[in-house]
Every structure is written in C-alpha cells, then in structure tokens.
C-alpha cells in the first residue's frame, strides 16, 4: 500500500530534483548556484546546518565553498590523502558516528565537529574526488531511510559533476558544453527517480503492474517512428510513466473493483487524469508539454473522452500517442473485469475504434512500428518484448499489412 506520506515524499523529492537541475544549469554565478544546490539538499532532508567543500588537490585538503547555518566559518582544514580517497565509496553518505575509528575521521575530528557533521558525503565526478558535503543533524529522524540515501546519492552525484565542470576545476570550460553535460546527467537522474515514482503508481493497481512502464515504452516507439526530437521523446516517455499518477489519490478498492462500478465510482476514477495534471503541474519539469499529454490521455477523437471532451485535431499528437499506448496495454493485459485479449484480438479492437477512440494516422504509425519490430527492422524493440510470445508472426504481419494498406489507401 502506498502511503500518503510516501507520496508526499516522492513528489517533494522529484520536484526538488527538478529544482536542482534548473539551479545548477542556471546563469547565476557559480557560488550562487552552489549555495542554492546546498539549500536544495538541506531543504529536502531538513538539515539546518551544512557545508559544501571543494577539494584542493595541491594542498590535499577540503576548502569551504559555501555553507548554511553557521556564523563562524573559520575553517580548520580537513586533510584528505590519496589513501583516504581510495577508501571512500563514491557519493555515498557516511554516518560519522559509525566511522569514528576511521583513519580519515580521527585526524579531522575537530574540523568535522565544528561543522556539526553527522553525515559526510565524499563527492566524486567519475573517478575524480572533487569535494564533500557535510550535513548536520536533521530536524526529523536522525538517520536516513534507504530511499533517502538513494536520493542523496543522486543529488551528490549531480553536485559533484557541477563542481567538476566548474571553472574552479577546469579554467577553460565551454559553458554550452557544461550545460549540455549537466542536462545529460539530469536525464539519468530523472529516469531513476521517475521510475521509482511510476512503480509506486503501479503498486496501487494490482492488475496493472508495470503498466506505466509499458505505456512509456510504447509511446516512445511511436514518437520515434514519427521522427520526434530527442527531448520530445523524453517528454512522452516521462508522461507515460506518470500519466496515471492521479490514481494514487483514488480508493484502491474502487480502482481494482472492475465491473459493477456505480456512477459515483466511475466518476471518481474519471478524475484521475485531472488529478495527475494537478500533481505534475506543481513540478518544474524541463518538458512543458508533459502535463498536457498526461491530462488528456483519456480523450477520444470523437470527443467522448474526458476530462475536457476534446475532439479531433484538438488532441495533440502526444495525446493521441499516449491514448493508444495506454489503451493497447490495457487490452493486452488482464483487467479486473476481463481476461487479456490476444494480440490478434487487440489489433482488431484498435482497428474497430479508429476514428472514434483513436486517431487513424497515429494508429497507423503504431501498426508500422509493430510490424518493423516483428521483422527485426528496429534497433531496439520497445513493444514486442512486453507482449505474449504465443502469436504467429506470419499471421500478425499479414494482419498488420492489411490494416496499414487499408489505412494508407
């Protein structure tokens, strides 16, 4: 069962990561960016006192870069030798009370304690030691949950890369490249966190395990076939992962009830795209269309969908893609009220609903990708690995050829 507090935590973490991404790539001065980054962490984990340190390899010591919550910042040096660096796990938070006998901690006790350090995170960009974060006591529980440690690691990694790319480290860094690298890095961070988020949604709905993940994959396959730009493909991927997030607020019993839903219950379920939109629009994602894709994933070409009864070309391509990816996965997986359809049955069903539920052009693209995947003509199959293996490729290929020929005519 997903608890409300977990959801609050996830939304807060994911939006904090989005903030962090925006901060470290902003045009503010380096010092201001790093200070803001430190504030993002201290806010995420409610730590009133913290310091961010940069490694000076000539002097073999950590130097104060920015801090939060200290009046006196006369800094006794923290010495870090090559041997220490070797002993550190990269970007891994250390609980200092557990390493008191350690050869790094001992000579540096005074300095670390001056900064109220409870948690010490050595920062590494790839294999290079670039600095450290000292976190003081938390306002909440003293230790970190495993999920929090993971997020902390992701954040540490982000900051490490920012430090590494900074002019303090490399005096001749091209700004554009720096931002591009950061953006690349952010994508991985988003991916990990958003996947964790998607798993929380799917956990609520017993019948749709990994539904969000498959919808994301199918949507990507269609978008790529349409020749979408990389950033737009990412948007549809994340939209796929998060489209049903609004379901986390709906009673689990109602979601899994299946048949015999009362009108009130049906209306309750139909609220989920709007709730998804409300939740996600609070997050500062780098993809501006994402929330619209999510909001309208249950719209239909004939205007009988929800929540806004959009019609025909009022539906963007992204919405049309998500709608078919979502419905196709619903058809090919078991639901509370019926067994899954075979691939042949599902394809016939999609065909039957062309021009009413689904857009013909986008569906045609979907059929074409599936055809290519079956023939092994794509670099990496996105749809096929998730379908039941029990179909006859020849039969399906013929069927797809017939449908696409009809549609193209």
């Amino acid at each position, binding site marked *: 069962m997903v608890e409300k507090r977990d959801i609050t935590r996830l939304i807060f973490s994911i939006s*904090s990561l989005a903030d962090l991404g925006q901060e470290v790539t902003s045009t503010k001065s380096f010092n201001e960016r790093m200070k803001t980054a430190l504030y993002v*962490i201290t*806010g995420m984990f409610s730590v009133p006192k913290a310091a961010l340190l940069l490694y000076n390899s000539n002097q073999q010591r950590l130097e104060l870069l920015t801090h939060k919550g200290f009046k006196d910042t006369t800094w006794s040096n923290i010495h870090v030798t090559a041997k220490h660096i070797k002993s550190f796990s990269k970007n891994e938070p250390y609980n200092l009370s557990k390493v008191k006998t350690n050869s790094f901690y001992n000579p540096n006790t005074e300095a670390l304690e001056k900064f109220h350090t409870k948690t010490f995170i050595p920062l590494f960009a790839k294999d290079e030691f670039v600095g450290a974060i000292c976190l003081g006591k938390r*306002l*909440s529980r003293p230790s970190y949950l495993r999920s929090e440690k993971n997020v902390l690691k992701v954040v540490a990694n982000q900051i490490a890369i920012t430090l590494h790319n900074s002019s303090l480290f490399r005096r001749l860094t091209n700004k554009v490249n720096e931002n591009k690298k950061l953006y690349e890095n952010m994508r991985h961070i988003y991916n990990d966190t958003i996947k964790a988020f998607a798993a929380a949604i799917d956990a609520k709905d017993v019948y749709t395990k990994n539904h969000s993940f498959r919808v994301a994959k199918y949507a990507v396959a269609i978008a790529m076939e349409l020749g979408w730009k990389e950033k737009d493909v990412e948007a549809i991927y994340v939209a796929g992962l998060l489209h049903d997030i609004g379901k986390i607020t709906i009673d689990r019993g109602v979601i899994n009830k299946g048949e015999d839903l009362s009108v009130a219950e049906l209306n309750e379920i139909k609220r989920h795209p709007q709730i998804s939109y409300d939740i996600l629009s609070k997050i500062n994602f780098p993809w501006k269309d994402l929330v619209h894709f999510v909001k309208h994933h249950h719209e239909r070409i004939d205007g009988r969908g929800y929540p806004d009864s959009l019609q025909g070309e009022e539906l963007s391509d992204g919405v049309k893609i998500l709608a078919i990816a979502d419905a196709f996965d619903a058809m090919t997986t078991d639901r509370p009220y019926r067994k899954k359809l075979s691939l042949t049955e599902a394809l016939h069903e999609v065909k039957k609903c062309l021009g009413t539920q689904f857009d013909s052009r986008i569906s045609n693209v979907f059929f074409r990708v599936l055809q290519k995947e079956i023939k092994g003509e794509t670099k990496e199959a996105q749809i096929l690995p998730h379908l039941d293996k029990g179909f006859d490729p020849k039969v399906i290929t013929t069927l797809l050829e017939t449908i696409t020929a009809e549609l193209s005519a």
Partner: protein
Amino acid sequence: MDNFSILSKTINGIVIFMPKGYVNDLGAENLEHACEEFLSKEMKKVVINFSEIQYINSIGASIFTGIVQKIAEHDGMLCFTNMKKVHSDVFEMLGITRHVKVFKEEKDAVNFLKESD
C-alpha cells in the same frame, strides 16, 4: 525575488510575519534574516502566517529549517498558522512541524503566545 515579499508587525512583543508569494529561492532568506534581527532584540515569540504563501520548494523548506533552528537556539517560540494542506504535509514529512506549534488562525497563535511566559 519579485515574487516574494514579507509583511511584519508586532503585537505585545510577539512578532508576526506574513510572507507573500513564492518561497523558492535564496531571496526568501530575507525572512530568516528578519527573524534573526528580532531575536537579537530579544523578541523571541514568532508567528509565521502562511496564508499568502503560494509555493514552497526545497529551497524554501531549507530556509524554514534554518528559522526553526535559530529560534530553538535562542530558546524562542515559533508558531505557524494558516497553512495550506500541501505545505503542512511537506513540513510534517520533513519533521519541521515537530519543532513548531501549528494553529489554524493567526489569532489563535497570538493568544497562545500571550499566555505563555
């Protein structure tokens, strides 16, 4: 920073802040500085009224964390009032509300602080 401003008033030695707008960047640190200023004048009973706050992100949460810490270090008292549910959920999760008295209305907090000595 244009999206953030602070109104403050004092009633019977109680300091009341009403920050307005987005608490989402370092500009909001002014609230922490304003608190420190009153603390240095031995005014240690502080109310923060959240009714005009639209949005708080992790940077904002960090600033509130700092305020909680400073007031605790000065043996002061801190009350939050008029919080929206989204904000109280996050603050509760972060353990911030553990160190603060939360009231529905500003006047409730003022009455509470008046009576506590």
